[in-house]
């Protein structure tokens, strides 16, 4: 929840209806609350990361009506009635998705902070284009910064998940 001091003297709150990972919820928000803060602090799904808050790093990427968007630059009040998918919505029936598995197999995660945003961008890419080429993958991941991996492992993971001949790395 937002801190008490931050709640004082604010513009009237609104009730918005959000469908987060397939579950409809009513949430009370202030106009100034960014979607990422509502997802993390009100709904409690902390998989989505709050990075630069400037639209640069892409760690806060979620799918709004299927399109990858930055939840730090989206006001929660603007999302009334929207379908939102976060990284928690990728696993189905307790089993992680192919792209999540590929990230593990390729060692595409180091500190992991950028990973939720990467996964959402890639999920949206693979839904539109099940066999993306390397330039297409790079174009889709333009807005996601990773300071650990150097991106090669991430691109390999996308190739593995899209079944393009890249095998899991074995030790």
């Amino acid at each position, binding site marked *: 929840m*937002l801190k008490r001091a931050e709640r004082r003297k604010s513009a009237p709150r609104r009730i918005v209806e959000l469908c987060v990972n397939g579950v409809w919820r009513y949430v009370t928000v202030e106009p100034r609350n960014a979607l990422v803060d509502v997802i993390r602090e009100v709904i409690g799904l902390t998989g989505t990361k709050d990075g630069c808050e400037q639209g640069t790093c892409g760690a806060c990427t979620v799918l709004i009506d299927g399109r990858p*968007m930055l939840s730090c630059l989206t006001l929660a009040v603007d999302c009334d009635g929207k379908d939102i998918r976060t990284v928690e919505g990728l696993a189905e029936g307790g089993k992680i998705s192919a792209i999540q598995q590929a990230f593990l197999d390729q060692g595409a995660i180091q500190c992991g902070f950028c990973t939720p945003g990467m996964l959402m961008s890639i999920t949206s890419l693979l839904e539109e284009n099940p066999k993306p080429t390397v330039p297409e993958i790079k174009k889709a991941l333009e807005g*996601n910064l990773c300071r650990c991996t150097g991106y090669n492992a991430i691109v390999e993971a996308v190739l593995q998940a899209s079944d393009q001949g890249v095998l899991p790395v074995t030790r």
Partner: protein
Amino acid sequence: MILYDFDYERAASFEDASEKLRGLGAGARVAAGGTDLLPNMRTEIVRPATPISLAALSPEPPSLLPDGSIRIDALTRLAALENFALVRTALPMLAKAAASVAGNQIRQMGTLGGNLCQETRCLYLNQKHDYQFKAPCYKRGGDLCYPFPTNARGTCWSVHMSDTAPALISLDAQVEVHGEAGIRRMNVESLYTGDGMSPIQLAHDELLTAVVIPRAPARSGWGYCKSARRGGLEFGIAVIAVSLRLDETSGVCRSARIVIGAVRERPVRLVAAEEALTGRAPDEATLAEVATAAAKELNPLPHHGFTKSYIRDDVRIKLRRTLESAAHKARGR
């Protein structure tokens, strides 16, 4: 970081937005994609008391007007532009310009109108005041220009970074502006004041609602180059857009429009270079000569760590290549 406290309105139509802007006065501001406005609200460069969201409006698809020009709704998302066959085939330069803006998420959120109406940028201005190591600058209502201390009071050397504006100006596009008196049309060029303090020439209650691009004449060619340090998610060092039209028979250049963006408070047209090219055959030597003269004519502002001479050199080389690619396309038609 939690944003400062503000109220919120949602517009049901452009008329409604314009009415709300009038009713709420100076504290209101429209927000389309929010990818420029929200970072600026976070750094408190702008502090609208009531952002008026256009989230409820959905853009009309681009349409072909009876005179052959193409009308694109200002709320069209930058990522959506290249999905329209009409834009891909008839306006490849605009599709390329839109695809070079920032990263995928920003293109999914940001609109064409918003890209044209974005604020100018400066490394000192675009940080939260708490992080600025000196007093606020003129644009924030302060008493100094930290990056350019000799600047006269009230001047701002921030740079307009739009990637689509140079392309649209070189295509001779117009914008539809919705205000109290109805809809008026103006050239994209006259949308910009050239003053960093208030770069956009729109009245408080006016909204940019559409962009209209005329049909390209026969034997015309285009060239577009966003020169940047990285391949993506970057503001340009210079954004170069060129449209050429060759003579049907002789192949000499009949008209040229050369526009350089991201170098000054507004996209700059290089009129002298355009005139130098007109009436001459666009061969390699001529284009190199025109590009050299154009780089001299250009007076860029140093920005994002690039010096004036670096930007000039960069423009000289990239403009030559862009002109060559435009001439090549014009000959091919």
